[in-house]
């Protein structure tokens, strides 16, 4: 059996964003006879169908796909949960940036700048201790005031909030974005 062919098919299925049909595989591997491709796919199915392997190859939705075993779901979910705990979402980053540059600031003010209700991402940031509550604003409803924490400074490697990159510094970088295509 042609082991290279098997390997190529394996990587095609791995990289494909959707179940990869036999037709598509044949469409890529035009140099190889159809029968050989079919045989290689069958052999792969057998290898990855064995119980020795953590990854499985399945035939679904008209194509081949690598997937995990149902019995490992518990562990996979745990990993995803952990990952979520450790990282920021784009929404949380946006909220954090508004607090960093506009502090001291209230939830209503953050939401106004972002154009969406920021309470969920604010909660995330409080839980991660990147922002802190520093009192109440002397305004109707006495809303809580938020600031970035010391942990925020340590995380980004600065000593003082005054050291945040300025608008001028960032715009100088971003303005070049379009020109950089050929670079």
């Amino acid at each position, binding site marked *: 059996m042609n082991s290279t062919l098997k390997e190529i098919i394996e990587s095609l299925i791995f990289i494909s964003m959707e179940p990869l049909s036999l037709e598509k595989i044949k469409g890529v591997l035009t140099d190889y006879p159809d029968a050989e491709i079919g045989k290689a796919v069958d052999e792969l199915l057998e290898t990855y169908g064995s119980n020795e392997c953590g990854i499985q190859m399945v035939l679904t939705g008209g194509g081949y796909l690598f997937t995990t075993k149902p019995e490992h779901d518990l562990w996979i*979910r745990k990993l995803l949960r952990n*990952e979520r705990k450790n990282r920021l*979402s784009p929404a949380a*980053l946006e909220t954090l940036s508004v607090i960093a540059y506009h502090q001291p600031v209230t939830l209503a003010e953050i939401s106004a700048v972002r154009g969406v209700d920021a309470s969920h991402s604010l909660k995330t940031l409080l839980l991660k201790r990147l922002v802190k509550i520093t009192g109440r604003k002397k305004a109707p409803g006495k809303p809580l005031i938020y600031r970035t924490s010391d942990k925020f400074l340590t995380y980004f490697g600065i000593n003082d909030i005054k050291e*945040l990159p300025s608008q001028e510094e960032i715009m100088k*970088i971003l303005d070049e974005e379009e020109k950089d295509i050929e670079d």
Partner: protein
Amino acid sequence: MDMSQTYQVNLDNFQGPMDLLLFLIRKKKIDIHDIPISTITYEYLDYLERKDKINLEREAEFLVIAALLIYIKSQMLLPRETMPEEDGDPRQILVNRLLEYQKIKAASTLLREKEGRELQRWNRSVPPPLPKGDDEEIILKEISLFDLAETFFLLMQKKEKENIHIISGKNFSIEEKTEEIIAVLKEKSFLDFVEYFNNQKTIEDALGTFFCLLELIKARIVVALQESLFKPIKVWLRKGSPA
């Protein structure tokens, strides 16, 4: 860069004055620790003069090193009152810079090899099918001050633009807009609903576009789909549509 090819070519082939200097030293088989300053200065200036058009912004950097070479040369010509060991070799600054630059250049060569290999590897851009119930959320891996600042100032820029929306009195043609949408769909197979609207220059344009899309959907020429809640809405051209 292949050295043999750069022999007859101009300054643009060098990454900068250090690159040119290093090239000349190698070409002349000069010991970097004992550079004959007169020779190298002559060679270096000769290269600068070959250029007929002077691009000052770029050449200025070459001229700085030329000035340094001439300065070192003058220092070497001065009679010494003290012993050379005490005074130090005037070439030392240049030698140190050349050695450091040479190291960086060699490291770049090694990194280039690694890059070539790694660029041929492919990772999945979407996760494999996951257990149901865990909706995928984009999470950011490593965040630096740049990301934080970029996020903020882009947000501010967006806000500014929103505040100065001017409804221009331009005449708006529904037919033209419809044709434009179909042309985009034929070229790209689908378009991102939100993105397309954001790219409209005026509110009038955006509203007109929206009406056109509604018409196209009603006429069953296009179809709008959302894979799941909060996912982008995509507009597709229907197969076998009259358009």
